C-alpha cells in the first residue's frame, strides 16, 4: 500500500488553499449546471440561491483571513456582551444557509442571563465560523445547537457549537487536540476542513484573552470559545 493508507496528511499551505478553493469550485460547478437548458425554473432558482450562499461563505472566510493578518496592528473594543443575544444573531444570519441544506440551527436558551467580555465583531466571526463548520458535519434532520455555559469559579463563559454528525476517529481527535492552537493545521479538525477556521478562531480568541477548544461526542462534536465573564451582573 502507499503512503496514503489510514490518514493522508495535508501540508498546511495546501490545506489552507483547499479550504478557500472548495467554495470556489462549488460555485463554478453550480454555475456550469445553470447552463443546462432542461432545468426547470425552480431548479434554476435553487442553483442561484446555492451560488449566493456559497459565495457568502467564501467571503466570510477571506474576510476573516484578512482580519487575522491585521490583528497585531489593530485595537479592538472590548465590551460586555449578552452571549445569548449574540448566538441568536448568528442563528438568524445562518438560518437561510442551514435551510438550503435541509438543516436547522438553534440556540439553547438560558434561564439566567450572562454577560461576557469580548469584541463583538470577533466573537461573531468565531461563532459564524464554528456554526458554518458544524453545518457541514451534521447529519440531515439534526439541529446544530449553540450552547452557553458559565464556569463561575474560573470566571469564564463558554459558547459551544454542538453538531450531530459522524464521530471523529481517535487518531484525528488526538491530532486535533495537539494542534488546536497551531495552524493552518497539517491534519485538519475535520477531514474536509484544513483547520484554517480553527486557526482564525484561536487568533481572534487570543486577542480577547479567550481560548477555543473542542469536545468529542459519540455522535458529533462541540467546538467552543471561552471568554472572560463580565462582573457587571454581579454588581447589579
Amino acid at each position, binding site marked *: 500500500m502507499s503512503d496514503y*493508507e*489510514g490518514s493522508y496528511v495535508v501540508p498546511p499551505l495546501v490545506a489552507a488553499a483547499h479550504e478557500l*478553493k*472548495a467554495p470556489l469550485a462549488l460555485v463554478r460547478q453550480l454555475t456550469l449546471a445553470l447552463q443546462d437548458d432542461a432545468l426547470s425554473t425552480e431548479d434554476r432558482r435553487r442553483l442561484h440561491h446555492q451560488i449566493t450562499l456559497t459565495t457568502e461563505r467564501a467571503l466570510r472566510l477571506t474576510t476573516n483571513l484578512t482580519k487575522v493578518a491585521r490583528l497585531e496592528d489593530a485595537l479592538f473594543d472590548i465590551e460586555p456582551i449578552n452571549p445569548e443575544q449574540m448566538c441568536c444573531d448568528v442563528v438568524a444570519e445562518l438560518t437561510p444557509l442551514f435551510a438550503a441544506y435541509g438543516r436547522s440551527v438553534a440556540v439553547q436558551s438560558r434561564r439566567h442571563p450572562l454577560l461576557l467580555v469580548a469584541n463583538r465583531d470577533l466573537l461573531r466571526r468565531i461563532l459564524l465560523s464554528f456554526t458554518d463548520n458544524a453545518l*457541514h*458535519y451534521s447529519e*440531515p434532520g439534526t439541529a446544530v445547537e449553540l450552547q452557553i455555559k458559565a464556569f463561575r469559579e474560573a470566571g469564564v463563559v463558554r459558547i459551544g457549537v454542538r453538531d450531530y454528525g459522524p*464521530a471523529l476517529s481517535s487518531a484525528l481527535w488526538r491530532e486535533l487536540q495537539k494542534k488546536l492552537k497551531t495552524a493552518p493545521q497539517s491534519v485538519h479538525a475535520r477531514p*474536509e476542513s484544513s483547520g484554517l477556521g480553527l486557526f482564525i478562531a484561536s487568533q481572534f480568541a487570543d486577542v480577547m484573552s479567550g481560548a477555543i477548544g473542542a469536545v468529542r461526542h459519540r455522535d458529533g462534536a462541540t467546538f467552543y470559545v471561552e471568554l472572560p465573564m463580565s462582573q457587571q451582573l454581579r454588581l447589579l
Partner: protein
Amino acid sequence: MTRVLLVEDDRWLAELYESVLQRDGHTVDVAHHALAAMDVIENNVPSVIVADVLLAGSTIFPLLHELQSYGDTGVIPVILCTNIADQFDLEALKTYGVVRIIDKTTIDPADIAASVRSAL
C-alpha cells in the same frame, strides 16, 4: 444499467453529480461519508465508485483500504473526484483500485458521466 456509488459530503455537489449520472442511465447510490458508503456497499456492490477524498469523519482512504481486503470489492474501479487532485499520483493509488483522478476545480459536471463510462 450500472450501479454507481457516489461518495461526496457536499450535499449540493452530490445532488448535481447524482442527477448527471442518472441522466446517463446509471443507478446511483449516494453516501455522504465513508461509513455510510460501507453500509451501501454491503447491500449493493457498485460497478464503479466515484469518491471525494476529504470527507466528514475520515478521508476516503480507510474505506478504499477496506475494500481491497475483499475479493468482490477489491476489483471495483474507483474514480477520485477532488479539489486536491494535484496532490495525488495515480500510479501510487492504483493499489487502492483508483483508475482515474479528476479535478473538481476544472471539470464540467458532465465529465463525471464520461469518467464513469470510461471506467466500465
